[in-house]
């Protein structure tokens, strides 16, 4: 879904996140102090952004329940993978199956 610049996630370290892929890459390299600024006992900015802006309630709930960046990466990665799979059309699946059998 398209979002406006006001809805982007502006991280403490200057990173600007526009979607889940950006967040995934950000979490892979984020420093500890930036992460703790956004995820602490009082708040979870990532969960709030996913819920309020990206409108992905299920993922937001999972993210809100952890303060571990590795787990967040896994959750986000999973949903991206699922979305990619849903996007595959019949022809792509058949081609993959043919290739997997014929090497």
């Amino acid at each position: 879904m398209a979002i406006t610049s006001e809805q982007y996630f502006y991280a403490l370290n200057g990173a600007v996140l526009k979607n889940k892929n950006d967040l995934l890459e950000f979490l892979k390299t984020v420093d500890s102090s930036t992460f703790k600024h956004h995820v602490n006992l009082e708040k979870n900015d990532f969960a709030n952004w996913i819920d309020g802006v990206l409108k992905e309630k299920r993922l937001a709930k999972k993210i809100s329940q952890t303060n571990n960046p590795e787990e967040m990466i896994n959750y986000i990665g999973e949903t991206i993978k699922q979305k990619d799979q849903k996007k595959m059309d019949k022809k792509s699946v058949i081609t993959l199956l043919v290739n997997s059998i014929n090497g």
Partner: protein
Amino acid sequence: MDNPKVFGIVALKGGVGKTTTVANLGAALAQEFNKKVLIVDANFSTPHLGLHVGLVNPNYTLHQIMSDKHSVYESIYQHSLGFHIIPGQLAPVGLDYNKLKEKIEPLKEIYDVILIDSSPSLNHEMAAAMGASDEILVVSSPDYPTLSSTLHAVKIAKESGTPIRGIILNKVHKKRFELCSKDVSEASNVKVLAVIPDDIKVLSALSKMVPIVSFSPSNEVSHSYKKLAGSLIGVNYKRPIFGIKRKNGGEIETYD
């Protein structure tokens, strides 16, 4: 017999209707086309062909033929629907599966068509069925998991050197989300010989241990099997305007 044929009916996945296909092709070839037909249960590990045609716990089986305990002729049962059957045995024993071809081959003197039901697993049993056949029919259904298994089966069949006659696309609901025959034939490079619809009547027939071509002759599934049976022997099946209906494979009554 003039040009007798042994067809191996294979699928690398259970539940696609392989045994149902064997039973119905056997019944259709015998009843509709007056052919001398033998159906053979070479699914050694899980033999259920007998249960599709009302033969439960037979005394003589293919297992005993393969073990040289009985001659092949002793284990042939005549079914009231006109075809003959060599059943399997529910308790499996260790066998030399390579003997299957030498046991089946002499029977081509007697029968027009021999149909071999095979194991749904990639093992020596399937290899034996393929090796004993003149041509292979691959049974599939219109979904991705079965297509994957079908592609694998086609590959194995091609490697076996036995020609593939075609694919039987079974359990078709004609829904958009399903794979169509074009999808399957293009992916496998094998012609789809028949599209058999799915129908609850197939299960109803199975509960009576009667092939649906006899249990419900006017059903679309029955017509599809008869058409396929005809194509296997090069005869055009003409769908009757008025059919006959058999009850439980016995009494015949007309219907309109």
